Each structure stands twice: as structure tokens, then as C-alpha cells.
């Protein structure tokens, strides 16, 4: 398929008259042609070396499980130094992008649609940019797949096109399973040019990594797809490919050409089956930025600490591309591009089609940040009723029926939406883009997906609760029966014994006669009581003293902010085996409650009540200490009360 075939030239001739003719230029369904505005950020040269005042590094910059920090506040770190290790499972480490001091380990707002704050490591750069030599401890390029995957993991490399899936987990464990390696240089989102610039400047790096992977995994076919609107990049990549069998293919400029499913369909004519990964059908796709990061890891042993970011938008007078350190706050980048008007609106991360508005403009660049977009908000028309025009279905690259999905999502008929293949939706936004009623379709689908996931989790939970309840009932029944059986056996045995005794010895002399089982039991109980009494013959503490003890506990709790003594024994351990009377229990509980209330009061001045213990964060340590102390005192008081009770009869 050549872009210059007669058919394609004809279509391009028709296109000015009938713009939708452009849909005949590619193989997947639907697609839209937004205003690209790519030239904005290409007018300025690539910037690099910008050092922000601080770098904020979220522990989770990828899909999966957050990394675990391995530095302390105050630690000095060097560039490339490991600052957070990969957790078990789907997780990648985080490295220091420059040298400096760790100044905070706390919750910062993430560049995420939710606007939630999650744990981050904050580095104050010292400006020296001292780097570790060979930070990944690489002696030679990896020879085996296992070594390579370990290197990818150690280097913290994730898919840099947007999804952020850890790259090591994407690759198979043995060679020969992959037939096609697709280099994704399509970059179909409007405004974004970082991949374009990367291909122009680092084509060799990209190709080297691709060849390395193709060699290691024995991939016969390597193809690179670049949209026709990037002629410079195509030229650079073709040049870099000379002498290799990598094919650089110009693909039509259409959104969402860069989507995994779409580009796969376009370049190798394979549809990725629903609910499956592309590797299952022998396709691995890698973004050009990811490949460059891989080259840096295998050639230089460098982990991923920076990436190309497009800083663009209608609100900037000098948009540009920058080789930015991870952790650079968005607003500092945007200020470099001279925003006009003032930056008093939320920035977008990513392009206008799939990006999201950030909750705060000082969120950091992370591994998946390809673009920081400053588009001043426009007057948005309110959504109107759906007129079922079907434009959305025409535009959907997955060939879904967005309008019917919307209908069910809006009516909260999530099961029906799922039947209409809701989960095949790639949230590309084509449907919302063309909707004349301006319905936020994608958000409906995102909400519906979340609801379906929650419903499923809830159903699983309900089922589990049912099973556990049934199991418990069965267990209780069994225990009851066992107990009854034991009792019956005992009874039978005692009866037998008594009968035996009656039969062998005549009950003439009562003192000499063997005691009946009941008498024995009575005797034993008496003996036990005696023993308890002797034990209890110690200084008697009366009720008033117990109360005083509790008061002391309160005072102690108030002081607890200063004191740091550890409790010597666990409160629970002081509980005696003899059973407390109900009255004792209540008393003790009351005392304990009082003590706890006092302890709570002691910290109330500094902490407000929160819903969850771990949310108390700053005051938790103190509170725990207070509580422990109070509980100790309370337990003491209880023990005292019990002793008093024991000795009084």
C-alpha cells in the first residue's frame, strides 16, 4: 500500500470537495479529522537543561502497583540513583532525575483525572547534576530475554505513549512468539509533536532499540508507522533504517491512528481480539519514546529520568518541545512558553482528544506525560438531547454503537451497556467530538465502566459473604453437635462409673465410699475457689482507688504528647483466666472508655476527626501512644476492680 497510489491521489483530489473522503485512505472504521495545530510547537527549537526549583516524583507513574520509597527525608541523592523500588507484581522503580536533597515524602496532587493526592518523593535539586556512573550496574548489553526484561524493570521503563504499562511485562518470555514489532510514531493527537521531534533528532536510537528487540525475540517483521503530516520525521527514520529490514510506512493522518488497535489494523491487518493483549496475536507495539528509553538503558545503563514533552496550546505565545526531567511541575514549563492570557485555567495533560484537565497546575511531568496543553477554556454549549443522528457510530474506530451505549449508560442499565461491548471502547473521544448535541459521551462510558467494575466487585463480595456465612453456620452446627456428642459420652461414662461403683462396693460407710461424679466436681470447684482466694490475698484496692487510677490514666494520657515510654506488657495480656462478672466487665469498659475519651481529647487540639485511621497521618503516632497508655491504665483499673470483687465475698 503506497500513499501515492492512484487511488490515494484521487481521494486526495476529492478531499477538498468532500472532506470525509479521507476516511477511504485507511483501513479501520470511523476516525475524525480534528484541527491539528501541530506547527505551533514546531516553530521553536527543542529545549533542554531546564532545572525546576523542585522535582515531584509520584511513586505511581505507571499502570499497576506503586513503587516503595527507599530514601529518607534529608538524604542526598545523585542523578540516576534509585529512590523508590519496584513493589512485587506489576510495578517499576523510580530514579532521581538529578542530584539534590530529598525534602519531602508526602501526598501531592497527581497528574491524573481524579485530582487525587498520592505519595510522592520531592527533590530539591542542587544544580550540580552529579550523576552516578553506570547506575544500573550494566556490564554488557543483556544477552538473554530474562536479562533484558530485568534491565527494563530496573530502568523503570513504561509505555511512554500514554498508557504507562510497564514494558517488561508486555514482552513474552521466549523468542519466536512475536511476528510483528510495530514502532508507533503515528502521534495522532492534535498539538503534540514530541514524538515527531524525537524521531527527527534520535532516529538512530529508536531504530537501534527496535533492532535489538527484534534480534532478541526473533521477530521477523519490524514496521514503523508515521502519519503523513510528519515528513521530516519520516525522512529521518527512513535514513536511520537504511541497511536494515525495518520498513517505514506513511499512514494516513487521522485520529486515532496512533491507537494500538488501529495502528495494528492499519500496518499488519490484524484485529486484536477483544479482552486480549496484542502479544497474544503476535504483535508488540512500542512507542518511539519508549524505544529511545530502552536504547539509553542498554547502551548507557541509564534509567528513565527524563522525556520529551510538548508544551503547547492556544494560550501560549511561544510553545515548544522540551527534554524535561521527570517531576518538573507543569506550571514552570508553561511559564517558559509565555502564556497569554494569564494562566488561571486548568492545564491539560495529553492532547485535547484523550487528555484530562489537571486539578492543580503544579502537578509534575511523569513518565506518561507527552504533552502539557494550555488551551484557555471556551464557552461550552450545554448538552442537548440525543437525536440519534448516528454520527458517533460513523466516527467510532471500534465500530461500536456509541449512541445506544449512551442510552443505557444514562439509564444506569450497565449490564446492557456491557452487552453492547462497552469494554471494547478505547475512550478515544471521536464520538463526543462529532456529537451535534455535545453530549459528553466518553465520560458516560468511563462512568459506566467504573460502575460495572464496582458492581462486579460487589457481586463477588456478596457471594463471598454468603459462602462465608453458610460456612460459619455449618461450622457452628458441627461444633454444637460435637459438644453434644462429647457431653453425651461423658454422661454415659459417669453413669457407667457410678453403676460400677454401686455394684462393687456397698454404700455402708459414706466417708469411705467413692465420691459420686457430682461430688467430685463440687470438690474440685471448691478447691479452685480456695486457690483463687489465696492468690487474691494481696493489698486490697477498693473501688475508689480504681477510680483514682482511671483519673491518673487521664492525666497520663494528657501528658502523653511528651512522654514516649513504651508499654511493657500488652494490655490484653493482663486479663486473668478467671471469668469476670458482668458487672466487672461493664465497669472496666466504662473506665476504659473514659480513659480513651481523655486520650482523644488530648490530641483533639491538633487533629480533626477523620474517617480512616491511616488518614490521620501526622497525629497517628501520638494518638496510638495515647490510646495504648490509656488502655493500659484501664486494664490496670479493671484488674484492680476484679481483685477487689474477688476478695470481698
Amino acid at each position, binding site marked *: 500500500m503506497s500513499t501515492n497510489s492512484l487511488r490515494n491521489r484521487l481521494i486526495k483530489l476529492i478531499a477538498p470537495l468532500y472532506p470525509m473522503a479521507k476516511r477511504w485512505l485507511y483501513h479501520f472504521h470511523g476516525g475524525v479529522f480534528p484541527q491539528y495545530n501541530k506547527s505551533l510547537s514546531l516553530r521553536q527549537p527543542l529545549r533542554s537543561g531546564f532545572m525546576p526549583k523542585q522535582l515531584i516524583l509520584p511513586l*505511581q507513574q505507571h499502570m499497576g502497583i506503586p513503587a516503595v520509597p527507599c530514601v529518607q527525608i534529608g538524604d542526598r541523592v545523585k542523578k540516576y540513583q534509585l529512590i523508590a523500588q519496584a513493589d512485587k507484581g506489576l510495578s517499576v522503580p523510580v530514579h532521581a532525575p538529578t542530584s539534590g536533597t530529598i525534602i519531602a515524602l508526602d501526598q501531592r496532587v*497527581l497528574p*491524573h*483525572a*481524579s485530582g*487525587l493526592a*498520592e505519595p510522592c518523593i520531592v527533590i530539591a535539586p542542587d544544580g550540580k547534576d552529579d550523576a552516578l556512573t553506570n547506575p544500573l550496574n550494566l556490564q554488557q548489553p543483556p544477552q538473554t530475554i530474562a536479562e533484558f526484561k530485568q534491565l527494563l524493570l530496573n530502568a523503570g521503563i513504561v509505555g511512554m505513549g500514554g498508557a504507562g504499562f510497564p514494558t517488561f511485562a508486555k514482552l513474552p518470555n521466549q523468542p519466536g512468539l512475536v511476528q510483528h514489532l510495530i514502532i508507533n510514531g503515528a502521534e495522532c493527537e492534535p498539538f503534540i509533536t514530541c514524538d515527531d521531534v524525537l524521531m527527527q533528532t534520535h532516529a538512530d536510537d529508536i531504530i537501534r532499540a527496535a533492532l535489538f528487540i527484534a534480534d532478541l525475540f526473533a521477530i521477523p517483521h519490524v514496521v514503523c508507522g508515521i502519519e503523513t503530516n510528519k515528513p521530516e520525521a519520516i525522512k529521518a527514520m527512513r535514513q536511520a533504517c537504511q541497511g536494515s529490514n525495518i520498513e517505514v510506512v506513511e499512514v494516513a493522518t487521522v485520529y486515532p491512528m496512533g491507537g494500538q488497535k488501529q495502528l495494528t489494523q492499519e500496518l499488519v491487518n490484524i484485529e486484536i481480539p477483544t479482552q486480549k493483549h496484542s502479544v497474544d496475536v503476535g504483535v508488540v507495539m512500542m512507542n518511539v519514546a519508549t524505544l529511545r528509553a530502552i536504547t539509553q538503558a542498554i547502551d548507557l545503563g541509564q534509567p528513565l529520568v527524563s522525556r520529551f514533552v510538548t508544551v503547547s496550546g492556544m494560550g501560549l505565545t511561544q510553545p515548544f518541545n522540551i527534554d524535561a526531567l521527570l517531576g518538573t511541575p507543569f506550571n514552570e514549563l508553561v511559564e517558559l512558553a509565555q502564556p497569554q492570557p494569564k494562566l488561571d485555567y486548568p492545564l491539560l495533560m495529553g492532547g485535547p482528544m484523550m487528555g484530562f484537565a489537571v486539578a492543580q497546575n503544579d502537578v509534575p511531568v511523569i513518565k506518561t506525560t507527552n504533552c502539557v496543553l494550555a488551551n484557555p477554556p471556551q464557552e461550552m454549549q*450545554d*448538552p*442537548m*438531547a440525543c437525536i440519534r443522528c448516528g454520527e458517533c457510530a460513523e466516527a467510532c474506530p471500534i465500530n461500536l454503537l456509541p449512541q445506544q451505549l449512551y442510552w443505557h449508560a444514562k439509564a444506569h442499565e450497565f449490564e446492557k451497556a456491557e452487552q453492547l461491548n462497552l469494554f471494547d471502547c478505547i475512550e478515544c473521544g471521536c464520538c463526543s467530538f462529532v456529537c451535534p*448535541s455535545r*453530549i*459528553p459521551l466518553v*465520560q*458516560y462510558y*468511563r*462512568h459506566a*465502566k*467504573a*460502575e460495572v467494575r*464496582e458492581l462486579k466487585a*460487589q457481586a463477588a*463480595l*456478596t*457471594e*463471598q*459473604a*454468603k459462602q*462465608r*456465612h*453458610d*460456612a*460459619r*453456620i455449618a*461450622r457452628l452446627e458441627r461444633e454444637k453437635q460435637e459438644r453434644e456428642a462429647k457431653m453425651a459420652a461423658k454422661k454415659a461414662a459417669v453413669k457407667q462409673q457410678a453403676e460400677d461403683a454401686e455394684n462393687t462396693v456397698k454404700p455402708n460407710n459414706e466417708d469411705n465410699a467413692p465420691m459420686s461424679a457430682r461430688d467430685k466436681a463440687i470438690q474440685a470447684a471448691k478447691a479452685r475457689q480456695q486457690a483463687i482466694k489465696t492468690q487474691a490475698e494481696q493489698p486490697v484496692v477498693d473501688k475508689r482507688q480504681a477510680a483514682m487510677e482511671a483519673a491518673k490514666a487521664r492525666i497520663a494520657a494528657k501528658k502523653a504528647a511528651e512522654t514516649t515510654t513504651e508499654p511493657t506488657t*500488652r*494490655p*490484653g*495480656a493482663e*486479663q486473668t483466666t478467671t471469668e469476670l462478672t458482668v458487672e466487672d*466487665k461493664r465497669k*472496666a*469498659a466504662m473506665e*476504659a*472508655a473514659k480513659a*480513651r475519651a481523655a486520650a482523644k481529647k488530648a490530641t483533639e487540639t491538633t487533629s480533626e476527626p477523620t*474517617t*480512616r*485511621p*491511616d*488518614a490521620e497521618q501526622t497525629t497517628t503516632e501520638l494518638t*496510638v501512644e495515647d*490510646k*495504648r497508655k*490509656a*488502655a493500659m491504665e*484501664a*486494664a490496670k483499673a479493671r484488674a484492680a476492680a476484679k481483685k477487689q470483687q474477688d476478695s470481698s465475698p
Partner: protein
Amino acid sequence: MSIVAGLLIFFALAVVFGLLLGYAAVRFKIEGNPLAELIDKKLPQTQCGQCGYPGCKPYAEALAKGEAEVNLCIPGGEPTMLEIAEILQVEPKPMDAEATAPKPRMVAVIDEDICIGCVLCIKACPVDAIVGTTKMMHTVIEKECTGCELCVPVCPVDCIDMVIEKTSLKNWKWPEPTVAAETQK
């Protein structure tokens, strides 16, 4: 003559359909009590016993037999009541004022520093979601807790709190879009 023919035809039809119905009744007979199963599926399975029955299944069975009111399930709230009424084909009954809306999912959390290891909560938990043993501190298996609150009142040292799950990246949900203009007032 024609009257006789008509009668005969209708008689024949009656016989045929009667046989068909009879066959269907035998062939498609449903074992067990499907009503109780159906209701049990709609109940929240917190096993809290607030309905006065020892668990969700017994309540469902009582409902199926027509022995229980439809508005007793507090955790399920009004939606569950309406579903039960729908299944049983009876008039919905209003819930108590506080129970009309289902509460957000809550889980019990034991303050391990206060817990005295009395095992009372373990005995109270209908789904065995609390682990621990005498004199050792107890803890709630969060993902198995149904939020029934049965453990809260039995705790002698009042160390069990019901908490709402914190929103994190794992359980964050896209909010539903605000309602379109045409349905706004």
C-alpha cells in the same frame, strides 16, 4: 350439524391444549423454592440480622413463605424493598426513615492498640471476617467485612469503628456527567 362440528372442534382443541399444558407442567417442573432463591439474590448478604432473622437466606425464605414484611432489610434500603415487593407481587411498604437510602460501603476497623482480645466480636461476626484469639489482638479482614456492624455493640472496650473506604487511584470512579440541559429545570 354445523353446531356439532363446532362443538367437536372445540372439544378436540380443549383436549389437545389440556394435554399440552399437562405435559408442560411435568416437563418444566421447577424444583425447590425459586422465590426464596430469587429474593436471596437481591438481598445485600451482609448477614446483619437486623431483619430479625439469622442471616439473609432465612429472611428470604420467610419472605417467600409470606411470613415476613418486605421492609425489614435495613442495609438494602428502599431499592431492595422495592425489588422484593416486585418479586413477591405485593404492595411496597415504606422503610423506616433512616433506612431509605443505602449507605456507602463501610468496613469495621479494630483499633488494635485498644483491643483486649476478648473474642466477643469474633463470635458476633456472621462471616468470620475477624481473626484473632483469646488475649491476642484481633483484626478485621477488610475485604471480607460486610459492614453489618454486629461487632460494634459487643466490643467491651469500644474499639471497633465503621469507616468508609478512602478514595484512592484504585477505587476512584469517573463521576457521572451532570444532567443534560433538556432535563434540567
